[in-house]
């Protein structure tokens, strides 16, 4: 049983962490928390199933197409729901605009794809029991994504530019960085990360339209715990959340686990509003 708890906990945790990183990636260049993060992960599963099962494409092609599709949705998010409201960031209109877009994505999926969970194909075909690929695939995907992001942010020029914008938007613009293009790029990147989360977690969570809202919440919890824009916090928070949730699930049952996650979420927010690894809040006066 311990094995199942750890396997399913790490798997779910890795997915939550990836959704958290999706939030962070969008947040870093735009200061916007977007409700589309969870929907992107949901779409990763739905597109994967669509391309591979419904259309019979080979795994690699299906994977690539899924990521492209999610990246496009990410860019659409930027154009439709973020760019028009950036001027009034203070009024938090982005909460409403991204919520609207997320609802549209969810509703279109529900109508076009169906409201029943649909199967996701096996990708590698390796492992059984607790070593089944549906458990280790999300963890591996999460690890590779983190490594990839670290490489991007530390070793490449584009990554440095991302960091500069995240650090100080105005200064970065004054330096002549193409802020708008970088923001679009970061939304495409967020789409890819969300797509990876959904694709890798497809066998565990199935291709199901309601995953979007669920992942929106469970993916946000690690961000709230770890602090906005802090990927390391999101990773630790995500894995801890997954393990805790699955342990509670196995030991005391499903209701308790959701209630406990919710209670911890509220308590942490009250005790440490900027997250356990977060930074200080902005000046008010």
């Amino acid at each position, binding site marked *: 049983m311990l094995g199942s708890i750890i396997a399913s906990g790490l798997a779910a945790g890795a997915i939550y962490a990836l959704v958290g990183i999706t939030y962070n990636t969008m947040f870093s260049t735009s200061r916007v928390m977007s409700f589309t993060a969870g929907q992107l992960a949901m779409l990763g599963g739905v597109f994967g199933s669509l391309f591979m099962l419904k259309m019979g494409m080979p795994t690699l092609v299906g994977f690539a197409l899924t990521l492209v599709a999610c990246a496009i949705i990410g860019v659409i998010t930027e154009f*439709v*729901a973020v760019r*028009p409201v950036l001027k009034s960031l203070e009024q938090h209109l982005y909460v409403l605009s991204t919520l*609207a877009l997320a609802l549209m994505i969810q*509703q279109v999926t529900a109508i076009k794809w169906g409201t029943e969970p649909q199967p996701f194909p096996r990708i590698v075909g390796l492992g059984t029991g607790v070593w089944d690929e549906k458990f280790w695939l999300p963890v591996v995907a999460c690890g590779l994504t983190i490594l990839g992001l670290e490489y991007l942010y530390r070793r490449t020029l584009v990554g440095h530019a991302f960091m500069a914008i995240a650090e100080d938007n105005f200064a970065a613009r004054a330096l002549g960085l193409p802020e708008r293009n970088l923001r679009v790029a970061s939304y495409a990147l967020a789409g890819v990360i969300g797509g990876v989360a959904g694709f890798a977690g497809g066998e565990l969570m199935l291709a199901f339209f309601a995953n979007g809202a669920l992942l929106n*919440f469970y993916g946000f919890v690690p961000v709230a715990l770890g602090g906005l824009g802090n990927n390391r916090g999101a990773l630790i928070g995500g894995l801890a959340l997954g393990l805790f949730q699955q342990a509670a699930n196995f030991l005391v049952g*499903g*209701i308790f686990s959701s209630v406990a996650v919710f209670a911890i979420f*509220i308590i942490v927010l009250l005790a440490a509003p900027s997250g356990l690894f977060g930074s200080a809040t902005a000046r008010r*006066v």
Partner: protein
Amino acid sequence: MTAITDISTSREGTARHSVLPALLPFIGVFTLAMILPFVSNDYWALIGTRAAIYWVLVAGLNLVVGFAGHLAIGYVALLTLGAYTTSVLAAGNVLPPVPIYGALIIASCVGAVFGVIVGLPAMRLRTFYFAMTTLGFATIVTQIALAWQSVTGGGIGIVGPEFSAPFNTPWGFYYLCIGFAAVATWLSANIAYSRFGRALIAIRDADVAAEATGISKPKLLVSIFLLAGAMAAFAGGLFASLQTYITPDAFTFDLSVLFFIAILIGGRGSILGPMLGTIILTILPEIAAPLAAWSTFLYAVLLLLIVLVMPGGIAALLDFKSRRPLASNRAIVPRIAGLSDVLRKTATTRTLTLRDVVLTFGNVRAIDGLDLDVKPGQIHGLIGPNGSGKTTTLNVISGYYAAKGGTITLGDDALPPGMPELRASKGIARTFQTPRVIGEASVLQNVMVGGTIEGEATFAEALLSLPRHHRDERKLAAQARAMLGVVGLEALADVRADRLQHSELRFIEIARALMLQPDFLLLDEPAAGLSSDEITRLGALIKAISRRGTGVLLVEHHADLIFDICDQVTVLNLGKILAAGTPAEIRVHKEVVSAYLGG
């Protein structure tokens, strides 16, 4: 005092006149609702009942979303909670059966408690976090309803409560729900147009200023969440009865979206708008049957359009008053003679004393060992170059920053460090360098916010519109009008504050601060952006205020104003005192002249 009573009696007549047009649309909607049974069939009874029930919930939620500005997107959870609580209690499958009205009341109490629990994060965090908590709550409530089979019946569901005659027919139940909807409208309007409603808007649009006027955000928000939660759960009980049989499927997230978007389509800070929004959104999928499956998509598109194109919603469309142009050649002419009627003579002999105050940000010593005495009835000028710590000093006194060292005392009492919302009750009022006014509220309402802590009626009294609440309102309105007369903005009392010029906002802030009848008034660059005529009048006004016994601490860059009206001047440089003394002494102080005044 005579002036106040005069004004209040002359205004009362006009106030009554202005209430009726505001009520007309509500009466119209109510009349239409009453006629509906005679012109339609049972199918419309169902839709009408549904709209009425939704409005019971939305009326409460409107205070949270439209007035307090907290984005509660998961209120379907409280509807679910209320529906199940009422059904389980009325069915008696766990406890002995409770009569339906008792069950509704208990459900409301449960809803109130959970309304607060879900709202807790809003005390410290806004917007996305709060949206997420409510969303998370909505997710888990449905999961619990599914899993807790012994009580909720799980996926199979449970029978909804049934009303007895005459409310057990479709139209009977319809009239009952319309009645509840009318009561809900009344309750929410009572709060919305009380000092609590204004305080909510103040927290939403000018939270820093709200703290300075002594509004306690946690206390107010808890009251609102209690009310909204109770109303939502009550609506849930009615909803269960309408459904006759409830399963978790009945409470889709789409409902939450409907509630939330109804308010935004209606417009913030309005009651009529969200009411029309609720009715429209309930009817919309019915009259366009092919669209029923796409209704949520439609709502989402509407939401996006509202955000991008028409942030004010229906209420802004209906706000014809704010489209009339204002006179362009307005001049602010304070009527200083009226000051003695509205500002009571302060009897305090206490001095506001700062001793060796230190404030550091990292390695920067923003204030470095500051001594300052603000005496009652005197004007104390605080000048110095940019970054010398003037505004920071005001922020320390008014509690936005806690000093790292030194003491601040008022007479013999130490002022607690931090805690800005306690300063108002100590008689300290202030204005801000960038005016912090509520743009969407009228000038009069903005000034009335200043007197929030002077009100005596409790939240419950305001909710039920009891006499003490009316007395508060009359008193505050009369006082605020008189205050506006003193600062010279009387003619603009009913105009939305965001239509005013910058200089007028500065005078609104002064009027708002004076509503507290402060012993000490902290003014942060009140003359910035004013014309030279206005500065002269401002100087006279400040002087008159101090002659009523109020101690004034004036941060200013206009040296002329400072030397004209101040009794004492302190010059800061890099957080330290460069010089202190009378204006005459400062004017000739060598270092001051070379460092700051130029010469």
